[in-house]
């Protein structure tokens, strides 16, 4: 098979291009937030350029490593991605294809599911709650944002939990880096999350026509929100899938835990409901990553503006932190998988 080395020139160019595009979009959509934040307009370009320089320097460093055949984490990563890209594609397309293979509406369920859930919950809870008192204006859209983000997360995590045990027949017979299994599970379930953006935007648009809620340029920030959620979920997936190998109880524990987590996250209610009654829960909410992701999404869709810059930092830190914890546990335990599955 091909032993060619990765073409770092091309990868470098693409990375820089992607960075510049992201930066431009971000600056354009989040300009007012940048203006209002502590770093102000003056420092912002400096940070942007320093980051760009860092990226370029790192790529040059990788090229140097490649030339001298030195080892480096970045280079290893690029090589494995290149080597197993095709396998990952195949695994993702398999998971995605068989999910709806035998249903008549097929992929339509990805659109329909969140809408139907939103409808049911809207009918029930709009009567139960004092929406005004919770400071929620567009409850239908509020619900939809929450449901889609939460379901995306919980679907992906549940799928990833079974990634190792479900592929036991492969893992015991052929060598593939094991982290590929949970990652592909999250990504294939992540396609659903991506697809559910269609009903979200569509419904918001139609709803907005009658209720004066307009989509703004902030929707270009949705990909950032999705990346935060996906990275976070990959971390959770690593953790769950490796624990699952040793204790099958994790499956049932996770069922209960994720339900608890869902109710602890303001998806159907507003956080103002808790104020005055349970202040400690409001405090605790700051440590609930899902609360931040859901709010992030709602700010983009309902408020039509970029979240405060601090939210980016918090969300990013949660995602990265979870990824590191998950990857650490997975790496520590992966050699033992084969003895237990």
């Amino acid at each position, binding site marked *: 098979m091909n032993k060619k080395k990765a073409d770092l020139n091309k990868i470098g160019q693409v990375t820089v291009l992607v960075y510049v595009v992201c930066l431009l979009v971000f600056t354009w959509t989040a300009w007012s937030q940048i203006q209002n934040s502590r770093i102000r307009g003056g420092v912002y370009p400096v940070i942007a350029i320093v980051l760009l320089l860092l990226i370029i320097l790192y790529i040059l460093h990788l090229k140097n490593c490649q030339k001298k055949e030195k080892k480096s984490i970045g280079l290893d990563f690029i090589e494995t991605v290149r080597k197993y890209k095709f396998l990952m594609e195949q695994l993702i397309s398999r998971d995605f294809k*068989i999910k709806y293979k035998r249903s008549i509406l097929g992929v339509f369920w990805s659109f329909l599911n969140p809408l139907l859930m939103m409808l049911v919950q809207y009918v029930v809870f709009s009567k139960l709650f004092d929406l005004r008192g919770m400071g929620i204006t567009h409850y239908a859209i509020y619900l939809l944002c929450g449901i889609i983000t939460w379901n995306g997360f919980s679907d992906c995590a549940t799928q990833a939990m079974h990634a190792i045990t479900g592929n036991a027949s492969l893992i015991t017979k*052929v060598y593939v880096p094991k982290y590929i299994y949970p990652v592909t599970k999250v990504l294939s379930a992540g396609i659903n999350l991506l697809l559910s953006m269609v009903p979200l935007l569509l419904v918001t648009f139609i709803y907005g026509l009658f209720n004066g809620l307009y989509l703004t340029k902030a929707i270009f920030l949705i990909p950032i929100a999705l990346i935060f959620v996906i990275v976070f979920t990959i971390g959770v997936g690593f953790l769950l899938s490796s624990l699952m190998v040793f204790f099958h109880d994790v499956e049932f524990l996770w069922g209960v835990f994720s339900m608890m987590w869902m109710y602890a996250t303001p998806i159907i209610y507003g956080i103002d409901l808790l104020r005055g009654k349970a202040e400690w829960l409001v405090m605790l909410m700051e440590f609930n990553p899902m609360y931040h992701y859901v709010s992030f999404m709602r700010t983009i869709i309902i408020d039509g503006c970029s979240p405060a810059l601090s939210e980016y930092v918090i969300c990013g830190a949660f995602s990265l932190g979870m990824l590191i914890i998950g990857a650490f546990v997975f790496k520590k335990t992966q050699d033992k998988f084969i003895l237990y599955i």
Partner: protein
Amino acid sequence: MREIREDITMIDVQDVSMRFMMSNDKIGSLKEMVTQLIKGKIKFKEFWALRDVDFQVKKGEVVGIIGRNGAGKSTILKIISGIMKPTKGRVVRNGNIVPMLELGSGFDFDLSGRENVFLNGAILGYSKEFLMEKFDEILEFSELGEFIEMPIRNYSSGMMMRLAFSIATVVEPEILIVDEILAVGDENFQRKSRQRMMELMSGGTTVLFVSHNMDQIREMCNRVVWLDGGTVRMIGETKEVCDAYKL
């Protein structure tokens, strides 16, 4: 005859030992684990599946591995192909390894034959271009014809085996690991598949071959490793080792 390059080592097995910890009962739940820990009841029994196994395979060789059930043949294959990590020692590999899988593991029953060719091929480490190029060959060898577009849950077991075999043997690996020669399907296909295996193994690639069939070992291998109770009992020329094994 085959060309053996003594100067190029393809697989270097260096003092490999593998230890399994056997608990009295396999602990399958958190509760059990905790209660057992409190009682101080978890005792592990050590079991060495392999002890200080050490041998090299040169480029172009066909090396047979023989031994009784439980001698550690499968374990050493798993360690060589990288599925298991040895407790001690290490294995240096100098090329890509393609294992002859148990046929059909990795098939997804809801996908069509065609989709499964690509899925299974990817699992075996083939590239996309390679599979595209070889697809017709696979199809032809499997004799599936138009059924290739059907979900394989509708296949007969013979059809499934034919497809699996065709995918598994389309390879051109640098190192091939064969766990028993596979002969599947009806009489005609069995002859065809056996011939295909022989071609593959005699094609100049390095082969590790595990079998209980001594006639095949004698026919195919240049060298034989005899494993007994996890250690190398004997290693050397095919005839010598096979004669000693028979006794």
